């Protein structure tokens, strides 16, 4: 009796394993050969990254992946890196910090990649950068800009973008403060998701606005798994704040806007982090309600930086739509890493790459980047965008502007 039950379970196990083997087609080819040393060869340079392709951060995570792919396309078309073709090994961490750590562990020791790119979001960058640090590998990352990313004394981390979290809304906040008396709002509300990045970003703006005399009438932090935004929106509406600055990621931004809309609360301006630059997802989720919403972006399609036009063109060819900020961040990460590797002449000496990154500046599609001792970029702020007639218009800084602000924003 019992014996036959056991046999049945074993049968089941075998069946499951066969099923597993049949289902997995997209096996990232991991070379077993370990001799990645010296001798110039045609062997590809492997670059590893783990990205949140599912879960909370999946929308922007996929954008970054596309950016990496476009960069790889460009590099390989122009003869590769150090004359060798580039291959990406990308894993899905499901927005889970445990998985992202295991992923990088595996990328480094099993897949034996030559170079590392970062994941998406400060939330995942913080634990994964510890792994890179342990193995003393340079970690150029596209999207970890929270203060906690830089204050841990890491030696190998570099954030390939123009500004850290607390500076990303600088241009917008300064513009609000500069509005003439009477037009300038007097009160502001700050709903913030509990995330290392979002809090810093909203508080950066708050400091400037408060210094400019705009009173904070609401500031609350809600958990990442919050789904019920009705009462939160009701409380913001009740505070009668004239403008709303959301320290948001994506889903929470959508929920918040929908709830404010349902309560017929009409602020003069709404600034949200991350979500507005996530296209087309943000507009798909909210429809006409996106009208007049502001957001920061490290990049704009209208930038005249070298290579930007080619990036947009290749991206549109490959994916059938215009790139968004996330993709540009991925591409920029690749550009920074490539420049350092070419200058050093090898991927083996990670310390040399690190030293080069720290000492030099880099031309990217987002502009010229350089890094301080903590790996943070020394830039002034992000580009500010606004939705006008359903399209993204760039407002600030003036050299990239494609339009002027609509203020107060139309009612939703």
């Amino acid at each position: 009796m019992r014996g036959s039950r056991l046999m049945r379970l074993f049968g089941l196990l075998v069946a499951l394993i066969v099923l597993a083997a049949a289902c997995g087609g997209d096996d990232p080819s991991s070379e077993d050969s370990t001799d990645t040393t010296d001798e110039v060869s045609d062997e590809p340079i492997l670059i590893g990254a783990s990205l949140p392709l599912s879960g909370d951060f999946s929308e922007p995570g996929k954008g970054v992946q596309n950016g990496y792919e476009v960069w790889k396309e460009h590099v390989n078309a122009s003869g590769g890196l150090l004359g060798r073709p580039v291959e990406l090994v990308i894993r899905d961490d499901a927005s889970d910090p445990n998985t992202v750590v295991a992923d990088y562990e595996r990328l480094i020791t099993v897949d034996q990649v030559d170079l590392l790119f970062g994941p998406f979001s400060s939330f995942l960058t913080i634990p994964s950068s510890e792994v890179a640090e342990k193995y003393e590998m340079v970690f150029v990352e596209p999207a970890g800009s929270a203060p906690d990313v830089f204050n841990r004394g890491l030696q190998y981390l570099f954030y390939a973008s123009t500004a850290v979290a607390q500076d990303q809304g600088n241009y917008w906040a300064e513009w609000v403060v500069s509005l003439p008396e009477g037009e300038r709002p007097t009160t502001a509300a700050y709903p913030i998701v509990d995330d290392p990045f979002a809090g810093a970003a909203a508080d950066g703006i708050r400091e400037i606005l408060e210094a400019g005399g705009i009173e904070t009438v609401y500031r609350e932090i809600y958990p990442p798994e919050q789904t019920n935004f009705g009462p939160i929106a009701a409380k913001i509406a009740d505070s009668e704040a004239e403008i709303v600055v959301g320290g948001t990621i994506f889903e929470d931004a959508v929920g918040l806007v929908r709830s404010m809309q349902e309560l017929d609360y009409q602020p003069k301006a709404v600034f949200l982090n991350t979500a507005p630059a996530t296209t087309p997802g943000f507009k798909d989720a909210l429809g006409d309600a996106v009208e007049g919403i502001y957001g920061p972006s490290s990049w704009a399609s209208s930038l005249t930086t070298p290579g930007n036009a080619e990036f947009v063109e290749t991206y549109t060819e490959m994916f059938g739509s215009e790139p968004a900020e996330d993709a540009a961040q991925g591409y920029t990460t690749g550009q920074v890493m490539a420049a350092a590797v070419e200058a050093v002449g090898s991927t083996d000496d990670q310390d040399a790459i690190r030293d080069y990154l720290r000492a030099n500046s880099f031309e990217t599609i987002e502009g010229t980047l350089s890094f301080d001792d903590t790996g943070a970029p020394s830039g002034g702020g992000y580009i500010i965008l606004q939705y006008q007639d359903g399209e993204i218009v760039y407002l600030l800084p003036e050299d990239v502007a494609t339009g002027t602000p609509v203020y107060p924003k139309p009612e939703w």
Partner: protein
Amino acid sequence: MSSHLLLQAVVLGVLTGGVYSLWSAGLTLIFGVMRVVNIAHAAFLVLSAYLSWFAYTELGIDPLLSLFATVPAFFVVGVLIQRLLLARLRDHVTMMSVLLTTALAITIEGSLGMLWTGSHRGIEISYSTSSFSLAGISFPSDQVIGFVLAALTFFALFMLLRHSRYGKALRATIQNPDAASLLGIKTTTIQGIGFGLGLATAAVGGLILGLIHPFFPATHWAWIARIMAIIVLGGLGSVTGAALAALLMGVIESVVLVTLSPVWAGMIFYLVLAGTLVFRPHGFFGGRLAERF
């Protein structure tokens, strides 16, 4: 804080609580009929949300119409799960059924992830972001639709339990399975129907979930923890108790959201759970109600 805000919060809380009632009614019904804690209940809610979302975005079927397919389907699945899986457990049935339904929940979660990735989804229908207001208090359409749907389903369930032959047999089984079987009631059949009914309510509940909240495969864990706190407060097995507890928790959650903070609003479910267990382990609305509906 203004009294207007408080009133608005109470209104939103009642609307949310109505939806919680439907979710917990199915769970507590299943517990009552077979003493099984269905850990997969919220996973079925999420599954139904995905099916309605798929029918709407890919096939263009109105979410309300898709109920005509999902409700019977869930009923049949429920009966099958009871007959083919739960009824075959022999030893330590309570704990083993917990593990079995946990396995179901994980399987559903993983399958949804494989089919439709882990991205957030939401059923965005044209009327879902509109609202109307009464005396300055806003009533969001999606929440009102959810509340009405929940109330209708709840009413149907109540009438079924109250006035049909099956309903009477079902209630007899909940009160005392042994006595019921002595009276000639086929308790195994009744248990199958009970599980089926519980899941059928989850089909409706899942559609409402999809209309109001964003969802992704792993969301069910947070929901199941909450509705379990509700059914303990209402007295395990008491449908009316669960409904009252759900309305109460909806309002408390909403009021705490506007008076204290979002973290406390999440915490309040579990504080109430702890309080119930300390002071009234059989639920505040339980005891007599649990036996009577």
